[in-house]
Structures are given as C-alpha cells and as structure tokens.
C-alpha cells in the first residue's frame, strides 16, 4: 500500500493540487488578481523550462524566445476566433461555439506546432553557426516574427488582436468551470513531463553531449544536426504553447508584448534558476513571477530593483539557484517519491 502510494505520489499530488486550485477558482475563493498571477506563473514555467532546454541543456544562447511565443499566441488566437466566435473581420464562426470546449487544447497545440515550424528559422542556421553568432540570429528571428505580424493588417497589425474572451465565454457557456486555470495547469504539467522524459532518455542526452563536446558527439554517432533541429523545434513549440495560453488569459495580444524585453525576462528566469536544471527553471519562474508582483507598487523602479537582484545573485551565486542540480540531488529523500535521472 505504502509502496503503491510512493509510486503514484507525484501523480496524486498533481491531481490534488490541480483539483484544489480549480475548486478554489470555481468557488471564487481566490481573487481574480491572484488567479491571474497563478496563471502567469504557469506560463512563465513553460517559458523558462523550454528555454532552459536550449540555453541550459544544449548550451546555445537563444534570446528570441518571445518571438516563438508570439507565433503561438497569434496562431491559436486567430484560429480560436475564426472557428468559434463572431468577428467583424472573419465573420460568423465556422464551427458551433459549443464545440470550443473540445477544440481548445487542440487550438493551443496547433499554435505550438506553428511556433515549432517557426523554430526552424533558428534551427537551420544552427547547423553551421553557434555561440554568439547564433545568438544574433535568434534576435533577428524575434524581430522578423514581430515585424511580420506588425505589418499583417488582417489580424490588426500593431494595434493587436482580440476576441479570445468570446471563445472563453463560449467554453464557459457549455460547462461552467474556470477553463483557463485548468488548461494552464495541464499544459504546465505537460511541458515539464515532456522535458523531463526527453532529458532523461539516452536520445535526449545527446543534447547534453552536443553542449559538452560537439566534436565528440558527432564522432560518437550523434546526428548533431537532427538533434539540434528537434531541440530547437521542441523548445520553440513549447514557447508557442505558452504564447497561446498567454493570449487567452489576457484576451488580447499585440506584437509589442513579445519583443526582446520579454525574451530577456525569460532569459533572466533561466539564468536565475541554474543552467540545465529543470527544477531550477520551475522554481525561478515561480519566484520571478511573485517578485514581479511584489515589486509592482514600485512601478517603473522595479526595473531597477530586479536587474539589481540579478546582478547580486550572479555575483554571489553565479551558477543560479540550483546550479545544474535537480531538486532530488539537493534533497535525496525525494528520490523515494520520484526518480529524476
């Protein structure tokens, strides 16, 4: 019995956590503000863990993560509005709005797939270049995506795009549950689950081999180009999922919110957490989201305080919160409940 409990303890914990959050949100016991902070926490976890795959595990420096988030946000927003809500540009919904409830996860995943395809923009040059030069390419990719959408008048250009709330309302009309909370929670867990499995398989460890010695990796039968393409696409695809969720939480997207500042924010989360540490990325995303909210009263000064905190952390703990260790390395008793490696 105890063994069974231990074996499924993580699943049990997650189901309970998800259930409690959903119940509290349903009862409106958590205020809307705290609820949105909670949801942004989920989005930030997806962003930081997925960027950690490239910057931490693969050792490349990608600073265009928000660009891929933008692709995911726009594709899933436009798709959702096109299919399930009446819009002045797209006209009547193509499908019955009551179906939105079933198609919503699919819409988010399609946004992710689109972002993964956009990830090729970085993945293909990565075959030939690396390091600083690739970092510049990722910035360029971010700008290309944003400029492209800014100049796409059909979906609002730089004015942004809205109407996602109607899709959410359609879902609520079908079954009255806090759907966004549920989906953000599920996709966050889904992301961690995918990355954990990818990183711990021999196949995925090829990525760390590329990071530690690319020449040896290539000689020791790792198809480096294929691994780079898969890793960049997985990372940007998950960023796209985060973007889709972000768009539906806010109900409005504009290209300006996915600029290089947003990418930097994600980078800060990754470096604060510790390179190549999945649990570090999760912890720092949670910590960073809370920090942003605590410092909100300082208004513009928070952008003085936060970089300062980063500098102090880097000064006294350059490896980040977790270094390259996982939670189970720091607290060995956790291994009884889940095995990380």
């Amino acid at each position, binding site marked *: 019995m105890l063994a069974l409990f231990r074996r499924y303890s993580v699943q049990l914990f997650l189901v309970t956590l998800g259930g409690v959050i959903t119940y509290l949100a349903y009862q409106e016991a958590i205020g809307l503000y705290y609820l949105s902070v909670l949801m942004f926490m989920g989005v930030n976890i997806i962003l930081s863990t997925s960027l950690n795959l490239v910057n931490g595990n693969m050792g490349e420096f990608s600073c265009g993560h928000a660009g891929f988030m933008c692709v995911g946000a726009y594709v899933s927003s436009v798709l959702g509005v096109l299919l399930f809500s009446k819009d002045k540009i797209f006209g009547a919904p193509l499908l019955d709005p009551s179906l939105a409830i079933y198609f919503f996860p699919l819409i988010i995943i399609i946004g992710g797939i689109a972002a993964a395809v956009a990830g090729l923009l970085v993945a293909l040059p990565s075959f030939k270049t690396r390091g600083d030069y690739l970092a510049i390419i990722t910035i360029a990719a971010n700008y290309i995506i944003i400029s492209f959408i800014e100049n796409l008048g059909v979906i609002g250009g730089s004015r942004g795009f809205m109407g996602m709330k109607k899709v959410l309302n359609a879902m609520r009309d079908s079954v009255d549950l806090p759907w966004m909370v549920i989906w953000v929670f599920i996709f966050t867990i889904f992301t961690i689950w*995918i990355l954990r499995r990818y990183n711990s398989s021999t196949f995925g460890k090829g990525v760390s*081999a590329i990071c530690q010695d690319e020449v040896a990796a290539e*000689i020791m039968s790792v198809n480096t180009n294929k691994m780079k393409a898969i890793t960049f696409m997985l990372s940007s695809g998950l960023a796209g999922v985060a973007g889709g969720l972000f768009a539906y939480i806010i109900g409005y997207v504009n290209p300006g919110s996915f600029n290089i500042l947003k990418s930097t924010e994600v980078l800060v989360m990754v470096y604060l957490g510790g390179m190549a540490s999945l649990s570090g990325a999760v912890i720092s995303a949670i910590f960073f989201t809370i920090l942003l909210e605590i410092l909100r009263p300082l208004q513009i000064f928070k952008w003085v305080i936060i970089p300062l905190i980063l500098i102090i952390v880097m000064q006294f703990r350059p490896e980040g919160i977790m270094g390259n260790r996982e939670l189970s390395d720091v607290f060995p008793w956790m291994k009884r409940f889940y095995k990380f490696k």
Partner: protein
Amino acid sequence: MIMQMQNTTKESAPVLEISDMTQRFGGLTAIADFNVSLGPDAMAGLIGPNGAGKTTAFNLVSGFYQPTEGEIRICGKPTAGLKPHKVTALGVARTFQNIRLWNQMTVLDNIRVAQHGKLDYGFFKSILRTSDYFECEERIEKEARELLKIFELDKYVDEYPTNLPYGLQRKLEIVRALSEKPKLLLLDEPAAGLNSADIQELIRLIRWIHDTFDVSIWLIEHHMDVMMELCDDIKVIDFGQTIAEGTADHVRNHPAVISAYLGDDNL
C-alpha cells in the same frame, strides 16, 4: 559481447582503403597522395614530426573533412559526402589527442550516449516511453555496464570523468570508442601525458583489445617504444608526404626519417 565479436566471420577485404588522398587547405597541402590499406586485424602506426598531417589524416578518415582528391573506403564503402556520424556507423571509431569525454555526464552515460546512432527509438517514443524505449534503454545499459566491467571501470559508473585519474580518462575514451563496435579503431596519441608505468599498461591494453575484439587498430604516437612494441607496419609522413613505410626497424634506420626528425647535416 566479446563472443559476438569473435564470431563474426573474418573478411579478407581491407577494412580501410585510402587511395591517392590529397587534402589542401588553401595553398597548404596537408596530405599528399596518401595511400593506405589496412586488413581486418591490422595493427598499424602513423608517425611524423609535429604538423606532419597525422591528425588531418585521422580527421579525413573519420569524416570531419572531405578529401580534396582521392577516395576513402571503409569496409568497401566509400565515405565521400558522409557526415562523421554516418562514417562511424560504417565501423570507424576514434579517440582524440586531447581527451574529449563529456565531463558533466557520468561514466555510464558517456558510454550510453555513444550508442546514439544505434537507438531503436526516436523523439516521440522517448516521450511516450513505449516498450521499444524500455527494451532499447535496458539493452544499452546492460551492454555499457558489461563493457565497463571488462575494462575494470565498473566501480566508476556513477563518477564524472573529470574525477578520474588521467590514465583512466584515456582508458575510458578508448572504451567509449570501442562501445561503437568498430571494425577500425583510430587512436590519436593514446600515450600523450601518461607516465612510463601507465604507458606499459596502455601497451598491454591496446594489444589485449587487438587480440580480444575483432578490430583493426591504427594509431598515431610520439612514443617510439609504443610504436616499436605494437605496430607491424609503420608509415612515416612529413609535410603531408609519405617518406617511409615498413617495419619498426626499417623505419627507424631510414635516412629520410632520421633527417625529418633530426634535420639534415648539409644545411
């Protein structure tokens, strides 16, 4: 695994065949008209002064460079246009002059990741964890542990390579190369940085590998005693040109070799 390797039928066809290979970097000819043919259980050496093009020859064979002219065949198959990991799949494995282990991975993982080309599963199965995944991972881990046990590295499986003594790091790199089950093993200065006791052990190790595994070995070395003891056939190059070839004694007394290493007296 050893059994498996011994049972493979010995082919008489050469494992490595290089014909008229030339490599130019801009105006510099690093390798000129290079010819080599190694049989299935050859133990050959390649020597030459610094900058002679020895490592370039290895880089060409392992697919890092494509030769400007000439052809390389591994077990009869030409390597032209193949990426290094494809060349490895044809049966070539190598070590490096400066040790190139993955230092943030455990010893076991170093061997496991070297099986990347032989995985039966891809991205989706690594995430969905189908039965193929578990079978493949189990097999790889079992083989890796067996191999490490054979080489008496099994007590270090969970250690990181940087924590091992230098000699064991060299050994681990050779074991990692062997884990590819190569037909041809290229050793690039395996004795570099070892003390004389370690060198004696290395000689024994290389000879043992040659006798036990069905593998043909080609090595670059500066330590003449290693060469003299191990190699039946030594090739000497200088500035990319082959200047002598033959048994250890023949090479040692060859005037061109002496002048390449010590210089001419008629300056």
